[in-house]
């Protein structure tokens, strides 16, 4: 906004003098916030540091230098956790507001370092008998604990992805893009049940009233895994594709319904995109076999869809 517009708002008495005084330095850029810049630097630092440490742990094991690195790592982890716990608010089922602008990133760093320590112990001393599987599960459980204790959405999403990878499902768009979403062909069944389980537990937690602001993250991951699982089943398992089609449409309907009651547009997007892919696949199998009809189908279906969204635009307006 231009400073003149702010002055006009005051002159026309939309805002009072006190509010003008509070906003004026911001609008005229006399006071500039570097909150996001510093947080991005900190975030990149954490990313590089934990990646580097992760590699360092496995290199030159047995060296004196290596021992020093590991010792520093242990001390650093302890220091981060000391900081996290000493500044932590008491646990609550609701969202917790912290005043320190970097607190949540220190928690994140603490958690990531702790996992480095844990995997070092596993690597060196075989902490858990059956290897990486248990380690992944323990990692996930620890992340869940930290996410709830420190009220941290980022750590929660790490917990969910770790739990997914315990079931050999990778929750990452890059992997879907290259077709590596599911390691082996039969994993889509696991994915469907995993996604469903995640969504159901999220809805139960939401109902009980524990950390309602976590619900979106759970449903987002769970819903995507479920829908992708159904879609993979549809494409791979030709013999039972009716079952997967019904499951896909049921999932889309559920997403649309949830979007309807919560006014969450993300789920509208999922419902339509996955529903459309499923429908097109089905129609291609049954009726669409001529190029001309194809073009009419594309034009008609999407044109109708656009018309519908614009026609009911007041429904799709953001409420808050």
């Amino acid at each position: 906004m231009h400073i003149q517009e702010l002055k006009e708002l005051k002159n026309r008495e939309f805002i009072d003098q006190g509010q003008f005084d509070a906003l004026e330095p911001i609008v005229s850029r006399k006071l500039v916030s570097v909150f996001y810049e510093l947080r991005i630097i900190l975030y990149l630092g954490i990313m590089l540091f934990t990646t580097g440490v992760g590699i360092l742990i496995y290199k030159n094991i047995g060296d004196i230098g290596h021992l020093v690195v590991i010792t520093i790592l242990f001390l650093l982890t302890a220091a981060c956790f000391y900081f996290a716990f000493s500044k932590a608010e008491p646990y609550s089922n609701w969202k917790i507001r912290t005043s320190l602008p970097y607190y949540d990133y220190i928690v994140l760093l603490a958690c990531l370092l702790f996992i480095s320590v844990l995997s070092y112990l596993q690597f060196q001393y075989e902490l858990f008998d059956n290897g990486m599987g248990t380690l992944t599960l323990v990692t996930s459980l620890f992340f869940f604990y930290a996410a709830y204790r420190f009220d941290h959405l980022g750590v929660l999403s790490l917990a969910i992805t770790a739990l997914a990878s315990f079931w050999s499902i990778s929750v990452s768009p890059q992997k879907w893009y290259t077709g590596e979403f599911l390691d082996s062909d039969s994993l889509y069944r696991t994915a469907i049940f995993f996604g469903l389980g995640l969504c159901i537990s999220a809805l139960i937690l939401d109902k009980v009233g524990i950390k309602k602001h976590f619900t979106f993250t759970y449903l987002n991951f769970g819903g995507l895994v479920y829908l992708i699982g159904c879609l993979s089943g549809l494409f791979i398992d030709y013999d039972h594709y009716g079952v997967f089609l019904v499951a896909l449409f049921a999932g889309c309907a559920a997403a649309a319904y949830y979007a309807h009651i919560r006014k969450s547009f993300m789920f509208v997007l999922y419902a339509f995109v996955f529903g459309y892919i499923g429908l097109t696949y089905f129609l291609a199998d049954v009726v669409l076999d001529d190029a001309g009809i194809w073009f009419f189908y594309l034009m008609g279906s999407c044109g109708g869809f656009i018309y519908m969204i614009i026609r009911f635009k007041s429904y799709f307006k953001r409420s808050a």
Partner: protein
Amino acid sequence: MIAYDKKMLQNLYLVKEVKQWMKDGYLREEQFRNIALEHPVKFYHPNLIIRILLFIATLIALGGVTGIFGLIFAGPMEESIMILAFFYGIGSCVVMEIVFIRGNHHYKSGVTEALLYHSIGWTVAGFLYMADWQIYPGLIFGFVVLAFCAIRYADLISTTGAVLVFAYLVFQAFYDMGDIMKFLVPFALIAAFTPIYFYVRGLSRKIEMQPWKNVIILVEALSLLLIYAAGNYFVVRNTTESLLDLYLEEGQDIPYAIIFYALTAIVPVVYLYFGIRKKDLVLIRVSLIVIAFSVFTFKYYFSLGHPEVSLTLAGAILITVAMGLFRYLRINRSGFTRENLIKEKWAGANPEAFVISQTLGGNKPLEGEAVEMGGGGQSGGGGSSDRW
């Protein structure tokens, strides 16, 4: 100049900003309602998700339309089909403007963007065909079309396209002049974009330029990046080697190498210095990106061969710098504060959680993981998943 009602556009931006103030607790809700009532906005301007949805749907539908036209005309008019495409492109732009912008008050609704890019694509493709794929007419025409769309529809992707095509035009012109001029390409680019930067930066102060404020910020940022890239040693060396048929032996270097080393080191510092002096967030943000790239450039040519140590050290330095500045800015100093004054729309907790889950590991399936950890040592965004 702009296709939209200017007054209404100003109202839209104003109401958007006031709404954020309300969310951040500067105003009461009824104040926001009063302001919104007094600044009516008739635009159809849906939120991002609906925009994406409409964009995808429009592109698919347009694919159908193009396909039907193609089926009708491909047979009988084999020769002139690309000329038809040119007019088809212009036609779809006219349809967008009359039906959607004038008729239904769409403003960046997803439908308009899809139609616009569709139109640009066919118009430019048709022109290229008619111009026999000659490079200069094609580039100039492309630039004119993109710049026109950037100004008339305040569209950001057209803006990016226009700036990049212009840069390429300068590059191509000097490259084609041959001999010495080839080596002057970096300086030509710097000379071209420095005045553009200052001119556009001057525009951003003017109140009547408000409808284009995002376009202006984008041009500023792109100009700064191009000025930097033109002088960056890594970029210059790679383009020189691949385009000028220059093969460097061990111990050899590109001509004037010292100038480019100096530019690589100095430009980021200059950006940062003036960014802080002028309290210009565009400069500060660009300088951060550019500093990272300069570090990469020097590491690339003077590597010590221990990427994991470099990673760890770089991370430690960044964490220290960020924490130090956070502590330093506990109180406001020279007009800078660490507090979050006005929240950015894109910076919610949910998107952040998603980014964290995608960049900080935890999304690798178990099978095949075995014990070969640490061997990969991939750096960068998505590759950090083999940490454990």
